[in-house]
């Protein structure tokens, strides 16, 4: 299957200059976004997931952030080096973004209708009348009842869930090729979250955009994602299809994430937890950033950063545990349960990490090259 790559991020490095020194927020991130897919980026706060997407939109504060190296290729253009004016044409037109808080991402003094039509008139040179027609269509599309009345109302007249729908409508106004959703449901209640997620999946089928979905909620990831990238300490540590990440994770950090969440059937006395705290990117540790919290830490983790090891065509993980010389390790029970589920599902023996050396013949081969 040949899928069109719509966005390529290559070896991105971003630093922030703060009073305390240089914070290396993104340290060599590589990923591709395919047409029509949803790529979820998961990670905890400070892992760099928001910074990555903000750099795609070029929304990082100019006074203290710096793209040290790397490329963000979209339509053959490197967004990292584009002039501000050219970027403005892309922003909101080809790539648009939905933010976490629907309360603050709408202008409280403007009617909803004007907020939707503004980008249409600006980017697509639509007439006022056509733009209004389109706005009504969009509101209908995102499931807002009585759009003819709602279009003349102000944001405070909408509930949180409805506001997020409006935000989505604005983001979709120009039929963007890429939609970046930065924790779009975190500020919402679970029942509203479920509605918004359904809406987004539904819309994606209808208009065939690619979505980058940032979240820290693995439940949401399982619900929306086709592929998942797990970030830790400013790097992607594991990337693969949703099934691969959830049922056959290879990186000990992913293991920790998956097993530290109780599901409805968890009865164990103690939850699996990742000890310690995330690394300080002001002074990133030598070697693997996850090493100090890794229960399976090896000497090499403290010396060298692990390259990406290939698990399958679509699945890569950056951990020395996948190296042929690494000793076999025993993942947490929750992960083992998932792995056996995966086995039944695919019939492929994924087994414990140490066993599938056949797949990892090309250590060091980076994804996307």
């Amino acid at each position, binding site marked *: 299957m040949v899928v069109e790559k719509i966005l390529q991020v290559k070896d991105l490095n971003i630093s922030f200059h703060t009073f305390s020194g240089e914070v290396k927020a993104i340290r060599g991130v590589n990923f591709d976004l395919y047409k029509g897919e949803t790529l979820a980026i998961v990670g905890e706060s400070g892992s760099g997931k928001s910074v990555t997407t903000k750099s795609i939109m070029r929304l990082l504060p100019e006074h203290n952030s710096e793209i040290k190296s790397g490329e963000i290729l979209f339509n053959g253009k490197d967004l990292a080096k584009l002039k501000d004016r050219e970027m403005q044409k892309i922003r909101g037109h080809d790539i648009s973004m939905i933010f976490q808080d629907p309360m603050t991402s709408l202008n409280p003094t403007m009617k909803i209708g004007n907020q939707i039509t503004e980008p249409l008139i600006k980017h697509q040179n639509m007439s006022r009348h056509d733009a209004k027609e389109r706005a009504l269509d969009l509101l209908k599309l995102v499931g807002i009842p009585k759009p003819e009345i709602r279009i003349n109302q102000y944001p405070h007249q909408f509930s949180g869930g409805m506001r997020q729908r409006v935000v989505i409508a604005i983001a979709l106004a120009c039929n963007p090729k890429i939609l970046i959703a930065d924790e779009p449901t975190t500020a919402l209640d679970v029942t509203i979250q479920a509605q918004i997620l359904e809406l987004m999946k539904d819309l994606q089928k209808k208009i065939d955009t690619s979505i980058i979905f940032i979240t820290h909620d693995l439940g949401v990831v399982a619900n929306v994602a086709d592929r998942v990238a797990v970030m830790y300490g400013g790097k992607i540590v594991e990337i693969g299809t949703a099934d691969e990440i959830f049922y056959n994770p290879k990186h000990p950090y992913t293991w920790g994430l998956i097993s530290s969440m109780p599901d409805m059937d968890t009865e164990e006395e103690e939850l699996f937890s990742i000890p*310690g705290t995330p690394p300080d990117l002001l002074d990133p540790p030598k070697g693997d950033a996850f*090493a100090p919290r890794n229960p399976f830490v*090896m000497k090499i983790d403290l010396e060298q950063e692990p*390259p990406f090891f290939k698990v399958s065509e679509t699945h890569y993980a950056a951990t020395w545990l996948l190296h042929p010389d690494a000793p076999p390790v025993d993942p947490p029970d929750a992960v083992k349960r998932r792995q056996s589920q995966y086995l039944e599902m695919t019939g492929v023996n994924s087994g414990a990490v140490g066993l599938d050396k056949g797949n990892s013949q090309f250590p060091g081969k980076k994804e996307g090259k």
Partner: protein
Amino acid sequence: MINKEDTISKDMFAPAHVDPSKSEKIAKPSLNFWQDSWFRVRKNKAAVVSMVILVILIIMAFVGPLLTPYAYDTQNTKHNNLPPRIQGLENVHWLPFDGTLTRRDGNVYNAYEVRKIDAYYWFGTDNLGRDLFARTWEGTQVSLFIAFMAALIDMLVGVSYGAISGYLGGRTDSFMQRIIEVIVGIPNLIVVVLMILVLKPGIMPIIIALSITGWTSMARVVRGQVLKYKGQEFVLAAKTLGASDTSIIFKHMIPNMFGVIIINTMFSIPSAIFFEAFLSFIGLGLQDPHASLGTLVNDGFVSMIAFPYQMIIPSIMIALIMICFNLVADGLRDALDPKMRD
């Protein structure tokens, strides 16, 4: 990029031991609020320079009068209206310290030589022959004293009033806020002028007159802060632990407002200096022989055309003090305001 697999020896894959307690370790050196703020202020060049100038001015305000042989209130009518003359600098003609004056017709003459006076008045003398160098520093001292006292009183009254009003809330709060509104509603110039008329001009009456209306802005700021902190979880936590109201205000709220309080005070000092100068200028200030910067400007204003130095020197002093205080306050606001932190 590590591609040479063979370079990694097998024993590198032996389990390593990482001290679990290490993962909780905090690498950064411990900086408390003041160290952190100082660190930030230091980065602001203008604020640092202003601070140095202010320190020099304050030291000079005390030391200055002692440096000249003339006292600030000794009159010597034979030596009146002499221009500035400084040893060593008198031969540098582009500096205004050569003892020369300009007549109305444009002729330049050396006042000291013409009047055959063998003396050096660094900033010149006034029309009663008092040494302006001594008077300027004496005036700076008085102006600064008035400003600091007024600011201090503003702070004490404002903080306690605002804290009580905000903390108690409800009806007490509304009542106390109405009082502030009444005070703010009356033009403060009227209040101050009336106060001075009743109390007779002098240092104390000016301080009282300035403070009587000055504390309201501090009270409002502090009240706003208290209202903000009242709902904060660390205050709620103290409440659930059974902390008394006073300890909540003094231990939890006010230390968190230090930044705002200091900034507000720093901005109120220059405005007090300005207001004092203004009062003196309209004749409600200190009485002779006492001097403040305002009275000096006022005196110099009378003979501005003939003897411009008499007004220019104290004016420069006022401007310098006000600019420096404002710049320092600005620098402090950037350093202390948590919203500016990154």
